[in-house]
């Protein structure tokens, strides 16, 4: 029994940052992530439960953490040492329940009473007490010392964090529920008009699926998706994109679809809604290039430190809006959509914890290697 632990080791963190910048995923072999024996964590309060993770996915924010490229903004929201892993399907110890974890740590999980205004209204992702309460700071399960994380054989969860998995849903499908919930949340701002999704990694594809699920009744404009690799393009088509193109081709497609004119590199019209599932300087800049005046760029992919030319944002009164996590009901929708689109097939490869450097290397180059979601498999010790 073992777990992966991310410790506060500045020298190793610097090494990870250097290695991860040069070659994404290499931070795993030189950084502060290590395989350690499992440790029994104390329950924060009696109602908390012990879980045995079955599958735990590797997401973009995990990769940024491992490679040391995540923003320093998160430092006060993380408690070391922590076990990563927030896309988790697990068994509840002592029961026959198989659950998906809602990793956001809200007032209820932190034992804060009365709960904050956001949590009171179900907006747990906007919790106003995010670093406080009777557990150590942690943005989510998987970044908190007190709760442990999915990249292990044991972790903790508050009952409010558990969503039961129907018996007919495979573990592979269930591990896609958490990222799908993010996508469901993102798709709630879908307008039915021309929409651009930048990036066809896991988040981009799932957001597309979530939009497709609602589109039949709302759609008036095409959904254009940028994808880099052939498998991403194929999947984007399968999941309902009207147009799949490269980033180079995107401005032309948007121009054509919206009847736009052009000045310099800037479209005069554009798509009212651009969903950036990458979060880089380049993707955000392109989002501003193709978004319509008065339109919205929704940042779904976690950005780091980016450099942007914002004159067009000012001139065209466009908005950049973050999109973080989900609300609890989004998981119910996510479960339904994972089943409807058979999204378990997006789990391309699983690794045991001891092969974590290979797993993270694979996840960092998933698109190029024809993969979408890479996960750790703890089902056989």
């Amino acid at each position, binding site marked *: 029994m073992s777990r992966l632990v991310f410790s506060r080791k500045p020298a190793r963190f610097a090494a990870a940052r250097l290695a991860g910048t040069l070659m994404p995923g290499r931070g795993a072999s030189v950084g502060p992530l290590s395989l350690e024996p499992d440790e029994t964590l104390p329950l924060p309060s009696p109602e908390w439960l012990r879980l045995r993770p079955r599958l735990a996915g590797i997401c973009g924010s995990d990769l940024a953490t491992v490679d040391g490229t995540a923003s320093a903004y998160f430092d006060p929201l993380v408690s070391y040492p922590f076990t990563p892993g927030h896309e988790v399907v697990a068994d509840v110890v002592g029961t026959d329940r198989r659950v998906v974890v809602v990793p956001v740590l809200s007032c209820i999980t932190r034992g804060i009473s009365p709960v904050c205004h956001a949590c009171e209204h179900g907006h747990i992702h906007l919790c106003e007490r995010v670093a406080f309460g009777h557990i150590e700071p942690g943005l989510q399960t998987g970044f908190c010392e007190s709760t442990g994380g999915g990249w292990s054989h044991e972790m903790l969860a508050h009952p409010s964090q558990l969503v039961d998995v129907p018996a007919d849903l495979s573990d592979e499908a269930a591990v896609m529920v958490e990222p799908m919930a993010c996508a469901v949340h993102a798709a709630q701002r879908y307008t039915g008009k021309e929409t651009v999704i930048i990036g066809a990694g896991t988040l981009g594809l799932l957001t597309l699926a979530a939009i497709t699920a609602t589109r039949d009744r709302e759609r008036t404009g095409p959904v254009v998706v940028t994808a880099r690799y052939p498998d991403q393009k194929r999947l984007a088509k399968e999941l309902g994109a009207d147009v799949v193109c490269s980033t180079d081709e995107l401005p032309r497609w948007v*121009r*054509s679809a919206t*009847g736009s004119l052009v000045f310099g590199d800037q479209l005069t019209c554009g798509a009212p809604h651009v969903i950036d599932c990458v979060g880089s300087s380049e993707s955000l800049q392109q989002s501003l290039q193709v978004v319509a005046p008065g339109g919205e760029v929704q940042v779904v992919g976690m950005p780091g430190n980016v450099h942007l030319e914002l004159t067009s944002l000012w001139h065209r009164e466009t908005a950049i809006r973050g999109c973080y996590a989900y609300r609890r009901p989004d998981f119910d929708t996510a479960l339904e959509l994972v089943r409807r689109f058979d999204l378990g097939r997006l789990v391309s490869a699983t690794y045991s914890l001891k092969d974590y450097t290979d797993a993270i290397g694979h996840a960092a180059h998933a698109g190029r290697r024809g993969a979408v979601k890479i996960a750790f498999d703890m089902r056989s010790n």
Partner: protein
Amino acid sequence: MPRPGFVHEVDRSTPPVLFWRGENFSLEKLPVGRSRVIYPPEPLPAIKDIDGAIRHALLNPHDQDPLPALLFPGMKLTIAFDDVSLPLPKMRRPDIRQRVIEAVLDLVAAAGVDDVHIIAALGLHRRMHEYELRHALGDRVYDAFHPRGMLYQHDAEDHDNLTIIGTTDHGEVLEINKRAADSDLVIYVNINSVSMDGGWKSITTGLASYRCLSHHHTGETLQNTKSLMGHREHSALHKSIWRLGKVLRDHGPKLFQIESTLNTDMFPEQFSFINKREWEWTAKDRATYLGVTKGLNMLPVKARRKMFHDIQSPHQMTSVQAGETSAVHEITLAKVFEQQLVPVEGQTDILTLGIPFVSPYNPDSVMNPVLVMCMGLGYLFNMYRNKPLVREGGVIIMTHPTYRDFNPVHHPSYIDFFEQVLTDTTDPVVMGQKWEKQYAEDEWYRHLYRTGNAYHGVHPFYAWYWGAHGQQHAGKVIIVGGDAPTVRRLGFTPASTMDDAFEIASDVVGRTPTISHLHVPSLLVADVQ
């Protein structure tokens, strides 16, 4: 005395044959005993006194009064001329159009006519750059007319300056440039490089609107144009144009057509090997070929392209005739065929074509993949009379690098067409129904066509339609040396070498197919019996 064209049966002593490959060449060995190479006639001698011949034509027109008799003070006169798509390559200065228009203007001045407009009849082609107008018309004409707004380019989207002349009995609306329609006389100055052009096509396409052109520039019409370069009665396109011509003649302005033909002396001395038959190459020709091809291989494609587009061709006028459109055009056609016609016996299983660096739609520009299709299946395949060189269901093999490269200034809608339309369909009829309207009415393309130097938004469709008959006729189309994904996007099959292409073709035409190679340059029309 120039030698006529002829058909050479490939035997063991036949040297490898020259193929164009875009901005370069290759020598290809064709199978012995079942291949033939169709060589064009040698260039006819040019008229010695060109200016004298032009003046003679103006004063002695066919079925029409001499030009001076048609001119009078106070009249409204419009002179229209063929645009930059002709001739190819561009001719050395002075261009024929300059010589003809200067001769016309001498008579116009003598008659005291002041209201003269000169219009580039570009239809839906791109507007010519100033240097191209100066090249075609000469500095004297340009400087005299352009600053005063009396030399300009036809705008098929300027609806305030278009007018309807009438409608054919097939419901085709003839809508042309208003200035021309309102003129007391329209003089059209044409260059006939190929038999497809000229006649009623000059004004009814060059000065027409999109609405007018859309009657006959369709996938269906071009599929039913079984003889683009040969007999008009087998061309649905020409039949439509001639119907529109009848409306123009009966209800339009008075016309005075001036047509001229060129010889096929297309390349200057440094490319002399191009015009020669390979077994007649001297040691100097072989060395030149080697030097040119090796040198070109070392240059980046942009430099190669510039080098070729900078060529100024020595071709020269072989005839000029003026007067009533139909009468003039029949003489022109006879002269074109005198230069280009080569009798050929029967069809073969395979037709091989070397695709050059230029087509009528990319002077000084990029031969993009859509234009490769257009040049191969639209132009070179159609260089026949009676029936195609390749049998129905046979294979067409072309050589061209077919790079995925476009000129965004000249061909903006071609880029979208390649990415958007061709990923959906390569069927000209389907794309016409599904996509054409969107491109034709796109405000951005319209803006670029009207104010920049872009082909009209619908033009890539027309380029594609041009190859519709060839596409329908061929059982398979193979491009040798092309970028494989790009070739596949066109609906064709890529091959690395000519031998590979023959191997691929064997699926369709068997292991011992007969082969025709159309030896271009220069231009020729195979009269297939």
